[in-house]
């Protein structure tokens, strides 16, 4: 009986309720696409792990390999493991055919690397010639940028090389790396001949090992831990790399899945509204069924089954849309992805998406459906009989518990961790509770504050909020929740984008020179045109390593308790320190005092100012000692101030700054920042500098800016894309929430017309009611959204928060306008048609 009736009734329900059920489709589509995409990325990266590294494991140092490392590599070779080396450096490359120059990334290789994967070259199969003396292979991009052809000569450092091939694709070079500059591949001996590895140059020495056995790799990691620490060797496996790459994309994925969940829950709210509308329209049928002898459970079953069926339909539509989006996402994020993504339709993900969609539909439909049980059979005879009960108390409790449990459950499932899921669910609970209380308070306040002598239209509009059987709480909840989600998503996106964006207007310099020796600074300055010479700014760099913290030598750090031990990244990295008399424009003192007022230190100790985050990771504060090794000399320093640094500015900034005069006598190189007009002017200047000082490398910051902008626009596009989902779902929820009261409103308006109310006053009454509802929902929803956005930006992403009043006003105005338009749309047939028909329908 139940399925028979349900299927018959659903046919007529579909056109009425179907559009609102689309809100669940949006949620399911978002979830299915994000999950599938994340799986695609993880699978693609995992299967390509060895190819991405070109080996199974890698040993990296930032200085030429020490004796211990060389010994280890020898013994690995003896043990039968294939070993290959890659040394990377940056240098300027110049064309002999014309004067064009370009910063390039040099890659000197020997051995059989890459051991996995294919390098695609033009002409085909010339990769093996890389190690031949006197020849190079270059990225296709370099040929275009320098106007070169195969067979031409490329000058690198003090050497000249024949270009014998172009690299079309090499799987080990991914993502952002390409932004620094095109690559030039040569043999190890040629690198020595080019002589670009001067003191302090940015170089990286890598040894690649074929070691398919995971046990071997783990053993190396443990056995040689001391050596790795002593010689600052970074040991990583292809699996580590793949995991890091997946995690990098995971940052985005994590945010996206929360957006997806928000869209799904919004969809649930939409379903709730849709079912409420549906139940309102079916009260007569329910009463008739009850008259004919259907039990409470039977009528409840009939409508529950319909809700599930509509949910299934909506979810299936969503799954299909999700699969389409899954195919689009890789293209949208192409610049961020390390490997080519092969989208694969995973039946389990699809089924899970549809399952969760149906479940959310049913759970959100339960509360409004309980009303069906309370319809008295008498209503079939007397349509004005009130359906007073909202369901038996016990049943309502069960429905609420199911709903709450489902929200917590899905949050924990979707969020990156159980704790994050609980926080997310708690935030939702707080939102709903505050909205609910605000709605009740709003009803009370309007009732109390409404002056008895206010104009009738105003009183009539306002009184709709607190009339018996009003839907104020339901509408404010649905609308406010939608606004909350939109507000959070929009605000977080804005804050992320603002943080990631590099402010172009503030970066005065557009040319960066490094590896400049002290005696070259004056000469380089004279090469800049007179008009811009004063923009040239030289900053010293002192390559240093940390050898001790708070008097504990680095070798003994392992004996420090874990929670007090300096973080290994902060200890092992190669520091490029500097000295400075004044704080830079992107710096701010947060603790201690800047020199010359900084506290005095004993003889033989120098004062240092640390960047606050690195200080925190080194577990040091004001007054603590840090011991450095700079070119073999030991420097004992005392922390006298901490700085906050805005790293997004194109300026030279440092983790550690010394006071002028303290370390001037150490081995030093310089970076020079300058401004040199447009791209042609910069190219010409680069040519002049590289001819005069072949050891100096240059970065055209303008080009980098372009590359960064391109990648950022990728991220922005992906986020905006999914935020769009939440927005559309929010609109559907809004329409659904207003549709809940539509029938009642139409009847009332028709009656008012019958009694002689004209259109202007009718519109006034509706306008006042909708405006009040929107204002109440907006103020509470947006207030909560700002709170949640502050939490997410500062706690989850650890970035600065700005509320963006302009955006808030825009969102509030938009919601108000949409509410009014939706309200007007729902009432237009009333304004267009004579009232009699509506009165008759009402009977």
């Amino acid at each position, binding site marked *: 009986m139940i399925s028979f009736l349900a299927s018959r009734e659903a046919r007529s329900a579909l056109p009425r309720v179907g559009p609102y059920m689309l809100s669940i489709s949006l949620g399911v589509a978002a979830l299915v696409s994000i999950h599938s995409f994340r799986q695609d990325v993880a699978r693609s990266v995992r299967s390509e792990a060895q190819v991405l590294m070109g080996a199974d494991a890698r040993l990296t140092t930032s200085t030429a390999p020490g004796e211990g490392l060389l010994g280890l590599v020898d013994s690995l070779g003896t043990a039968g493991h294939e070993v290959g080396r890659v040394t990377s450096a940056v240098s300027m490359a110049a064309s002999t055919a014309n004067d064009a120059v370009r910063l390039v990334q040099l890659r000197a290789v020997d051995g059989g690397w890459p051991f996995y994967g294919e390098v695609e070259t033009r002409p085909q199969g010339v990769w093996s010639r890389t190690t031949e003396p006197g020849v190079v292979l270059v990225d296709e991009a370099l040929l275009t940028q320098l106007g070169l052809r195969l067979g031409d000569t490329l000058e690198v450092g003090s050497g000249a090389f024949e270009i014998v091939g172009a690299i079309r694709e090499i799987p080990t070079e991914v993502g952002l790396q390409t932004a620094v500059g095109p690559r030039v591949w040569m043999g190890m001996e040629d690198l020595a001949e080019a002589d670009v590895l001067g003191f302090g140059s940015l170089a990286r020495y890598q040894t690649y090992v074929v070691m398919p056995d995971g046990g071997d790799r783990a053993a190396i990691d443990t056995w040689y831990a001391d050596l790795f620490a002593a010689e600052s060797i970074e040991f990583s496996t292809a699996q580590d790399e793949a995991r890091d790459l997946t995690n990098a994309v995971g940052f985005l994925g994590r945010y996206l899945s929360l957006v997806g969940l928000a869209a799904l829950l919004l969809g649930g709210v939409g379903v709730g509204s849709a079912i409420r509308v549906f139940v309102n329209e079916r009260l007569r049928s329910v009463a008739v069924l009850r008259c004919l002898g259907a039990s409470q459970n039977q009528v409840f079953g009939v409508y529950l089954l319909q809700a599930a069926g509509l949910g299934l339909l909506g979810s299936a539509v969503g799954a299909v849309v999700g699969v389409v989006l899954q195919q689009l996402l890789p293209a949208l994020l192409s610049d961020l992805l390390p490997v080519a993504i092969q989208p694969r339709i995973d039946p389990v993900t699809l089924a899970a998406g549809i399952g969760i969609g149906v479940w959310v539909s049913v759970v959100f439909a339960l509360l409004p459906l309980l009303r069906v049980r309370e319809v008295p059979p008498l209503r079939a005879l*007397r*349509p*004005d009989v*009130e359906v007073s009960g909202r369901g038996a108390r016990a049943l309502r409790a069960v429905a609420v518990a199911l709903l709450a449990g489902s929200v917590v459950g899905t949050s924990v499932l979707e969020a990156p961790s159980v704790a994050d899921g609980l926080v997310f669910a708690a935030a939702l609970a707080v939102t709903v509770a505050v909205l609910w209380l605000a709605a009740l308070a709003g009803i009370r306040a309007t009732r109390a504050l409404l002056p008895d*002598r206010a104009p*009738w239209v105003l009183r*009539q509009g306002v*009184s*709709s909020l*607190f*009339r*018996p*059987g*009003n839907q104020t709480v339901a509408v404010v909840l649905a609308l406010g929740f939608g606004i909350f989600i939109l507000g959070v998503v929009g605000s977080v996106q804005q804050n992320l984008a603002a943080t990631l964006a590099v402010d172009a207007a503030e970066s005065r310099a557009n040319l960066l020179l490094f590896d400049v020796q002290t005696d070259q600074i004056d000469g380089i300055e004279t090469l800049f045109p007179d008009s811009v010479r004063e923009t040239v700014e030289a900053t010293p760099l002192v390559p240093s390593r940390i050898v001790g913290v708070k008097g504990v030598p680095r070798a003994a750090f392992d004996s420090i308790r874990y929670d007090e031990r300096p973080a290994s990244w902060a200890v092992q990295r190669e520091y490029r320190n500097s000295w400075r008399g004044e704080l830079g424009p992107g710096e701010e003192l947060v603790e201690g005092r800047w020199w010359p007022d900084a506290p005095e230190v004993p003889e033989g100790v120098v004062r240092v100012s640390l960047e606050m985050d690195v200080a925190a990771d080194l577990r040091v504060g004001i007054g603590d000692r840090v011991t450095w090794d700079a070119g073999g000399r030991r420097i004992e320093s005392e922390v006298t101030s901490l700085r906050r640094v805005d790293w997004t500015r194109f300026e030279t900034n440092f983790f550690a700054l010394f006071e002028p005069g303290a370390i001037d006598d150490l081995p030093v190189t310089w970076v020079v920042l300058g401004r040199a007009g447009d791209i042609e002017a910069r190219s010409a200047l680069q040519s002049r500098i590289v001819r005069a000082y072949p050891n100096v490398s240059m970065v055209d910051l303008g080009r980098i800016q372009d590359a960064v902008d391109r990648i950022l626009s990728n991220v922005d596009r992906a986020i905006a894309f999914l935020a769009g989902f939440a927005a559309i779902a929010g609109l559907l929820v809004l329409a659904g929430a207003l549709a809940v009261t539509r029938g*009642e409103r139409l009847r*009332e308006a028709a*009656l*008012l*017309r*019958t*009694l*002689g*109310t*004209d*259109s*202007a*006053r009718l519109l006034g009454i509706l306008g006042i009611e909708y405006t009040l509802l929107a204002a109440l929902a907006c103020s509470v929803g947006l207030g909560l959204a700002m709170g949640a956005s502050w939490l997410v930006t500062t706690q989850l992403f650890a970035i600065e928060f700005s509320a963006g009043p302009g955006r808030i006003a825009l969102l509030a105005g938009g919601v108000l306008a949409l509410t009014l338009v939706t309200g007007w749309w729902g009432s237009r047939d009333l304004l267009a048609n*004579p*009232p*009699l*028909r509506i*009165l*008759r329908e*009402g*009977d």
Partner: protein
Amino acid sequence: MIVARGLEKIYTSGGRPLPVLRGIDLEIADREIAAVVGPSGSGKTTLIGLLAGLDVPTSGSVRIDGTEIFDLGEDGRARFRARNVGFVFQSFHLLPALTALDNVRVPLELLGEGGAAGEERARALLERVGLGERTDHYPSQLSGGEQQRVAVARAFVSRPRILFADEPTGNLDRVTGERIVQLLEELNREAETTLILVTHDMELAGRARRTIRLADGSLAP
């Protein structure tokens, strides 16, 4: 004086024309009490809907005291109703958001007479229909008979020249219905209103001075 000429209303049902009124000619004098009777589907509600300007005819005209109401437009007719017409419905049709008193005040508010004097008048009328103690109750808190008494008070509060009553006792038991009819008669006498009743109840129809019989959309002799 209400004058209807050639009043015709054709609905479209399933793509086919469905005539409900077929050329009605009718005159109702001032202060007359007329009952419109006829079997279900004979067009009774449609007829008074047209006489009150709640719907527009397919053809024909209605003139009330010299005003061609279908020349007025939807809003013009609404304003005309506010000034001249009162209604009592079978299912009461009170505004659920308003108390009994506020429901009665609505027509006065629409005329801009909702001030203290208006409130007094509304209160007095509620007293008159026996609901002086229940002015602050919402419709959902009133019984059917009480709701209909509020509706009667609302219908008379603006001193309309014409009152339309569509099955005013249809949803009420016999005793309660009788009280409503008495009220209508008394108030009609006092206010000198033209009263047009639609009813199935032949006894009620018999109390009217004139009976208008409808059969299949036409006036029956």
